[in-house]
């Protein structure tokens, strides 16, 4: 039923046949294949992100009893594309006192790191670029690059607001990364694997979703992931009212757009991890092969993205001291407790 | 290309070069944090060696990988303590250039 894998295989068969007909060597063909995959992946995620930006605006508008963008396209669907085009055209202002290479590479690193995660994400049945044996670890590792990007942006801008924003953001992201990783450990302990593909296939009905066995783990993960994405109530790094706009103060045009897009990609990533590890990924809740898998994946993920947006327009922002205290004094002990309980559970039930 | 494949010696050579760079940094940089970075380079050189031997000589036992793992952990601990020390030096000497910290001389 509407599985995309067959389609993709067919198209790839066509292309590779064409290329080998043109006399390309198999190595070159596989290289070209990787390039195509990367491009398609980028395109898909970029498309999703464009949709998310529009969606966020609509959700926020409706939550505040407004309409949001309405003019460009049906209910403003292509508003984001128009915005992106505008940003592309704008002048890229580079202040004089900046540390140029650092300033220049910061958004690139952030953006690329945000996309690199998708190499090992199972989008649907068979729709995974490379099911790495260390999948979750890979994702956690790659996401740390975001911090490097933020710090570079903060430092490179040579601006006190940027520096403070960068500091805050790095401290926050590093702090919340610890409980986040430890919360995921519970699932890993039960699943006995780090591979995302294997974890998804273990949860083939709604009853096998790991969220039932790891409710505490999921709660910790979700809070920490919200903080990782710098979403409200943890949006201190860019707190407009305090730090102007944090580390993005000195950015404009396309570079700003890169940060902006990376933020939405990270949001999508957090939802993807939640869905994959705790809610069965692309598996339908009613047993295997019930409806197209990629649709299930997309539906679940978008639901969690919606939850993130919901948070943003519901909760006030924390203070910076509360933020760190919460990570180290509440989430971290809870995460340890969760690991302990999981260990005891495994010992007792297996 | 006959000797096309990368042999153990290649990795060891790479490791040696990286190690030498690290040593040079440790011996010459004036800034304490730069020295720490150079030390990290040396650690990494050693890790490359360990993993290379693990991959080529004892692939089944994984000894090298595990020792490298321990090295990484110890390096992390070292970095934390060393940076704390650097911060303390910075507070006491208003600077972290190591050649200024020479009152343990004659």
């Amino acid at each position, binding site marked *: 039923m509407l599985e995309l894998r067959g389609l993709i295989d067919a198209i790839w068969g066509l292309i590779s046949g064409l290329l080998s007909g043109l006399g390309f060597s198999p190595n070159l063909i596989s290289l070209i294949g990787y390039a195509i995959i990367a491009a398609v992946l980028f395109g898909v995620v970029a498309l999703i992100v464009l949709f998310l930006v529009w969606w966020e605006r609509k959700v926020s508008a409706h939550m505040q009893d407004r309409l949001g963008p309405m003019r460009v396209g049906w209910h403003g669907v292509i508003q984001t594309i128009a915005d992106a085009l505008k940003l592309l055209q704008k002048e890229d202002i580079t202040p004089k006192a900046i540390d140029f290479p650092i300033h220049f590479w910061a958004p690139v690193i952030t953006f690329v790191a945000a996309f690199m995660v998708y190499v090992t994400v199972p989008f649907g049945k068979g729709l995974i670029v490379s099911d790495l044996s260390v999948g979750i670890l890979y994702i956690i590792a790659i996401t740390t690059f975001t911090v*490097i990007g933020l710090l570079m942006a903060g430092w490179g801008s040579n601006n006190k607001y940027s520096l403070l924003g960068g500091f805050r953001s790095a401290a926050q992201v590093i702090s919340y990364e610890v409980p986040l990783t430890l919360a995921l450990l519970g699932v890993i302990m039960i699943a006995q694997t780090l591979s995302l593909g294997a974890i998804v296939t273990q949860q083939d009905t709604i009853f096998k979703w790991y969220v039932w066995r790891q409710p505490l783990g999921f709660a910790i993960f979700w809070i920490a992931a919200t903080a990782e994405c710098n979403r409200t109530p943890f949006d201190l790094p860019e707190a407009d009212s305090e730090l102007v706009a944090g580390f993005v103060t000195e950015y404009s045009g396309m570079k700003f757009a890169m940060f902006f897009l990376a933020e939405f990609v990270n949001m999508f990533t957090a939802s993807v991890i939640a869905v994959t590890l705790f809610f069965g990924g692309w598996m339908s809740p009613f047993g295997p092969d019930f409806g197209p898998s990629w649709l299930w994946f997309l539906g679940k993920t978008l639901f969690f993205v919606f939850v993130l947006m919901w948070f943003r327009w519901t909760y006030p922002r924390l203070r910076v001291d509360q933020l760190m205290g919460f990570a180290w004094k509440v989430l971290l002990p809870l995460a340890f407790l969760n690991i302990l309980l999981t260990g005891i559970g495994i010992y007792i039930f297996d | 290309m006959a000797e096309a*494949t990368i042999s153990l010696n290649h990795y060891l050579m790479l490791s040696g*070069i990286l190690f030498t760079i690290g040593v040079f*940094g440790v011996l010459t940089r004036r800034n304490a944090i730069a020295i720490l970075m150079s030390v990290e380079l040396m650690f990494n050189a050693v890790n490359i060696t360990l993993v290379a031997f693990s991959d080529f000589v004892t692939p089944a036992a994984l000894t090298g990988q595990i020792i490298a*793992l321990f090295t990484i952990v110890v390096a992390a601990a070292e970095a934390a303590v060393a940076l704390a020390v650097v911060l303390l030096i910075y507070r006491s000497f208003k600077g972290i250039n190591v050649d200024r910290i020479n009152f343990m001389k004659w």
Partner: protein
Amino acid sequence: MSDAFLTNLTFYVLSFCVIAGGIFVVSSRNLFHSAVFLVFTLFSVAGIFVMQHAYFLAAIQVLIYVGAVAMLMIFGVMLTTQLTNVRLRHVNEQAWPAFAVCLFFLGFLVYGLWDTPFKISQAAAPAEVTRAIGTLLMTEYVLPFEVVSVLLLVALIGAVVIAKKE
């Protein structure tokens, strides 16, 4: 164009990244640049680990070195650098003797490693390396594992105590 060619290409590109990154780390005048190049170097080393089939170690390398150690370095740089544009010597006066010694050392190393044969084993690696490492850590290497965990705790407390303001 062969499979080996791709492997070689990867190795040489990665080696270039490692060495160039390393040289920048030790030679850059701007400490922040050094730190960023350190990240670059360490990431490239992770690539080398992948080439050596140590996927778990590569992930850990990125997680710990890039995510934690390099971050600490950057924090250290930010916390200790006075924002002045005075250009100071970034190397001390023994740079040239040290360079000579290092060059000698490197030459010696290259000479020694050029043709040395090693006992290459053809044994297969365990199917699931990550699982094998986990098992080994909990069985054969459990004592070092525990010792390292204690060391980490000590370092954590020690770092806090040392860095805390009076």
